[in-house]
């Protein structure tokens, strides 16, 4: 009794203990993308069968076995189907495992979903954030414990991300799962995530790290062999962060990167690396293929077909990874190869060859059919002599005799392929017409759904065979899928041609592979090139330093920006372009790079000096002469951006740094040039004095130029009182 009472009092004292009692999870049953179109038009992604079991069951049974007690399933696109499915499944009746659905019709992103969940106020403690297409068998215990301990020490540690080691292909720069190469910088001691970049191929294999990142972290390991499992252990603060930052949409692109860049709030994200257990998210058709094969190879044990983790579908595992349900009609001459799953009540005709494929329940496959690396869902009819390779065939599809599916084909629900018809590679066929404005709703699975297709879906859902016949009578474009075929072939939009082979179920064709190999070689050369021009890069980061705005995005930008400005300026010099036009061009650059006037001033000044420095000069006095000439010539351009004292200081700082680093020959002339700038009214005395003031606290090495300019500054100070009256006159002169 005493012990009990003690326990009870401890619970009430320590809210974290209380939270540990019921672990909650948020499961997003919507991917908020269109990667699985056209299939997801008719059925939500989480209900798509993965090795003959709807995906969400893998996620739920993992959550259940990992000790999660309450799951909030957030449904958006086709929410009705998900809710119906869950209500009729075994999950609702399990003891100690509550599944609650939250429905929303106007959420278009993970961010919206989390904001809605925050409004509902159902999350009380740490929770697991996961999407309904994640397969895992990891144990959450360690990760949770680590998260809790960190949280106790530092309340800013709001999230623990689960990562797994998995090498990306060096040639195609994509992981096994078809996602882009991912770069992470992790502090090896604390496991803190300090950098996350998943769109690395935009920058052709170059990533830019901010200098401050290296300054702040004494040790840091930069990894490109990590795979993000999309399993996050979050503190409740995460939800409120989403609410505070209403522009966060994507979990990684906005939220994680946003937190990493934001040093004001100081929120931290940590990683937890899993070694022996499995975790992966199905993001596209390629990962669907990969994860299916991993399941068949039993990496996900005990979530494998012959263990009845869900439902009652019993498979027996036979030699060489053949999984067979108990009730199968298989002709004696049929050859069922290794790593194949065959569902209940399926019939397989004579001389049929099946390898590396998954066949659903109630399929009937004729004789002399060849099926290779394909995913055939339930109740599919494949007539004699068909050939399928690396295709996904959804429920109720009929493939008439002699038809052929080339690699990468996707046949959505109830499509009929006509006799002898060859469906070309990577084509997607659906009973629905392709939405016309695909680009606008790239991100919204839901939007597509509401655009008039819904009524149509109603009819096909009910459609018996007669109805589909009557539809045929109404004039299906018979030509599109051959004689007697039903369905629209979706055209591949221009931009994504490149993506098709990346994200398809079919293996990468050899010619693409060679091309990628070629590209990899080119890239190598390119990186060597880029090594030759370091000077501006160096300056770049320094300019950033003076900005006080330290992040690699802007750093990256400012390198480009400065180069552009320099090029513009040089062109202006060589082609005698008017100053006004140069200003116009620089302004447009400023807008496109989102820079302030100070950046422009710095960049232009840098260009001027660089030009002077690069122009031929015999002696250093000649260089000085050149410089003063150029400054005088272009002072109007420079002046344009020096509206404020800040910009002027920026110019001085820039000059100082140039003298220190890239153009040391300027060093002896620092005072003279500064004096010239003052004479030309480019820099006001206030700015110089202020610069001097700022430098007072700096250490001696920084004061080098202040000392050099000491006399000049002294003179300015003395003169400043008298000057006050003169100033007005001077301005009139100007």
């Amino acid at each position: 009794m005493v012990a009990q009472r003690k326990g009870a009092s401890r619970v009430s004292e320590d809210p974290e203990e209380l939270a540990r009692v019921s672990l909650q999870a948020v499961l997003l049953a919507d991917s908020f993308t269109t990667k699985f179109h056209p299939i997801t038009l008719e059925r939500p992604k989480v209900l798509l069968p993965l090795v003959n079991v709807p995906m969400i069951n893998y996620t739920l049974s993992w959550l259940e076995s990992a000790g999660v007690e309450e799951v909030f399933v957030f449904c958006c696109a086709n929410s009705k189907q998900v809710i119906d499915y869950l209500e009729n499944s075994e999950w609702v009746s399990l003891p100690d495992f509550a599944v609650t659905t939250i429905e929303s019709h106007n959420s278009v992103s993970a961010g919206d979903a989390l904001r809605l969940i925050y409004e509902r106020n159902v999350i009380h403690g740490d929770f697991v954030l996961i999407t309904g297409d994640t397969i895992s068998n990891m144990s959450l215990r360690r990760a949770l414990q680590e998260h809790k301990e960190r949280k106790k020490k530092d309340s800013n540690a709001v999230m623990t991300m689960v990562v797994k080691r998995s090498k990306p292909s060096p040639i195609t720069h994509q992981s096994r799962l078809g996602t882009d190469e991912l770069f992470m910088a992790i502090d090896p001691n604390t496991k803190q995530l300090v950098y996350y970049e998943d769109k690395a191929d935009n920058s052709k294999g170059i990533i830019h790290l901010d200098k401050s990142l290296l300054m702040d972290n004494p040790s840091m390991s930069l990894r490109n062999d990590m795979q993000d499992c999309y399993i996050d252990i979050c503190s409740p603060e995460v939800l409120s962060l989403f609410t505070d930052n209403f522009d966060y949409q994507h979990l990684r692109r906005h939220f994680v990167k946003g937190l990493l860049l934001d040093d004001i709030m100081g929120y931290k994200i940590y990683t937890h690396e899993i070694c022996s257990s499995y975790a992966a998210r199905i993001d596209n058709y390629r990962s669907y293929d990969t994860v299916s094969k991993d399941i068949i190879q039993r990496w996900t044990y005990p979530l494998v077909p012959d263990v009845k983790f869900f439902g009652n579908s019993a498979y027996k595992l036979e030699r060489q990874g053949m999984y067979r349900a108990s009730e199968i009609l298989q002709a004696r001459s049929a050859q069922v190869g290794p790593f194949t799953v065959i569902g209940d009540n399926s019939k397989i005709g004579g001389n049929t060859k099946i390898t590396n494929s998954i066949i659903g329940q109630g399929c009937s496959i004729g004789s002399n059919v060849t099926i290779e690396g394909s995913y055939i869902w339930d109740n599919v009819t494949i007539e004699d002599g068909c050939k399928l390779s690396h295709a996904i065939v959804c429920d109720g599809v009929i493939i008439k005799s002699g038809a052929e599916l080339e690699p990468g084909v996707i046949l959505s629900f109830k499509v009929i392929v006509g006799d002898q018809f060859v469906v070309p590679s990577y084509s997607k066929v659906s009973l629905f017409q392709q939405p016309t404005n695909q680009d606008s709703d790239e991100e919204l699975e839901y939007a597509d759904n509401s655009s008039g297709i819904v009524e149509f879906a109603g009819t096909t859902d009910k459609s018996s065979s007669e109805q589909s016949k009557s539809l045929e009578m109404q004039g299906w474009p018979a030509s599109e899928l051959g004689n007697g075929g039903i369905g629209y072939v979706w055209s591949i939009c221009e931009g994504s041609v490149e993506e098709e082979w990346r994200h398809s179920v079919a293996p990468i064709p050899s010619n693409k592979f060679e091309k990628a190999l070629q590209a990899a070689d080119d890239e190598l050369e390119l990186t060597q090139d880029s090594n030759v021009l370091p000077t501006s890069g160096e300056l770049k980061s320094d300019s950033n330093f003076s900005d006080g705005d330290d992040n690699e995005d802007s750093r990256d930008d400012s390198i480009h920006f400065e180069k552009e400005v320099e090029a513009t300026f040089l062109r202006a010099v060589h082609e005698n372009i008017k100053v006004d036009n140069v200003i116009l061009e620089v302004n447009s650059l400023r807008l496109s790079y989102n820079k302030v006037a100070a950046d422009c001033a710095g960049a232009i000044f840098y260009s001027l000096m660089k030009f002077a420095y690069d122009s031929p000069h015999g002696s250093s006095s000649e260089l000085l002469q050149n410089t003063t000439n150029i400054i005088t010539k272009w002072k109007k351009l420079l002046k344009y951006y020096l509206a404020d004292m800040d910009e002027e200081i920026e110019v001085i700082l820039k000059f100082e740094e140039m003298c220190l680093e890239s153009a040391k020959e300027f060093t002896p002339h620092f005072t003279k040039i500064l004096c010239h700038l003052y004479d030309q009214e480019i820099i006001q005395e206030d700015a110089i004095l202020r610069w001097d003031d700022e430098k007072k606290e700096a250490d001696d090495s920084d004061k080098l130029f202040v000392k050099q300019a000491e006399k000049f500054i002294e003179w300015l100070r003395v003169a400043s009182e008298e000057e006050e009256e003169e100033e007005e006159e001077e301005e009139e002169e100007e």
Partner: protein
Amino acid sequence: MPDVQALVNDFVIKLKKRKIEGSLATAKHTAELLRSVISHQRIPYTNQAAALIDAVKAVGEQLIAANPVELAVGNIVRRVLHIIREEDLSLTTASIAGLSLSAVSDDEDDSEKDDHPALSAAAVAAAARSTLRPPSLQTLLEDVPNQASVHQTSSSGGDSEGKSKSADKSSRSRKLKHDVIEAVNELIQDIATCHEQIAEQAVEHIHQNEVILTLGSSRTVLEFLCAAKEKKRSFRVFVAEGAPRYQGHLLAKELVTRGLQTTLITDSAVFAMISRVNMVIVGAHAVMANGGVMAPVGLNMVALAAKRHAVPFVVLAGSHKLCPLYPHNPEVLLNELRSPSELLDFGEFSDCMDFGSKTGSPLLHVVNPTFDYVPPSLVSLFITDTGGHNSSYMYRLIADYYSADDLVIKKRPSTGS
């Protein structure tokens, strides 16, 4: 009733998810679950045994289907069924023999309901039977004709009882249930103490200055070796590590803490070391009716090496591991393939499993079976809680624990069709 169903579901889920490991724990859980099923089962006036059997069978079927690889579940279900049949038989024979006594025994029952049932004639008979249980051909021969007549006697007996007294019936039904639960308790006790019973025999088998080889880790083997050590035998143990789970490391550590001279070797060194070994002692996952053994992976190799060098290969198995089924294709059908991650690091080999390049079919297959099948010809001796037996004797031993009617546990309609 609903709470029993919840218990059953809970256990089924645990089995499905492979959350219970090891045949001992599984056997214990199964027996306890079946005990509560029996105690909650409402019993009709006629044919009580059949009602119990049906209830147990229904639950048993679910349990077996949940994890067909864990044979201990099926073994315990069959054992309990056998117990019910036995108790029913003894009750009927007792009541037929002592119809005159029945009034007296009724009074006894009424007065001291649950306290001293052992005084009743039937219980005495049951006790006598259980003392006789260690197998002897005579009892077996006696049992056979009896069992053939079970159905007639029980049904006709029930009828005749129905005519006699209604009060008698209710007490009898309570009695049957009670006796069965008693017997199941005994079974649970047996399972819990099987290690000690096996270990008691250790001194008979392990002699001074011998070298014993074992593979992987088994609690039975640990207790066995320690029991010999406690009896002042000094001997040495070679432990093969038992890849890929390396439980041999744990066993070695445990043996050392108990003061045994231990040598740890790799699995592949077994053949090299076997010539210096006097006896191989291993645990088992299950013992099949033909005397074949489902054992941790790697043991077939050890058994072959032992055979080659004429070293005795001794298998320790509690009686809950005796399975009345004959194996068919045991390497595949009774095996459990676990995750390849126990063998290799996914991260290091992930490029071999990149299905996007090349042909799209995996070139690397990783197979990680949990069990090996050791054919009966390679096993020299079985040591169970009842003593040492030859592998050819196993079917006899099994016939004593199970009744032939229960070998197939499936509901009537499916067997009928």
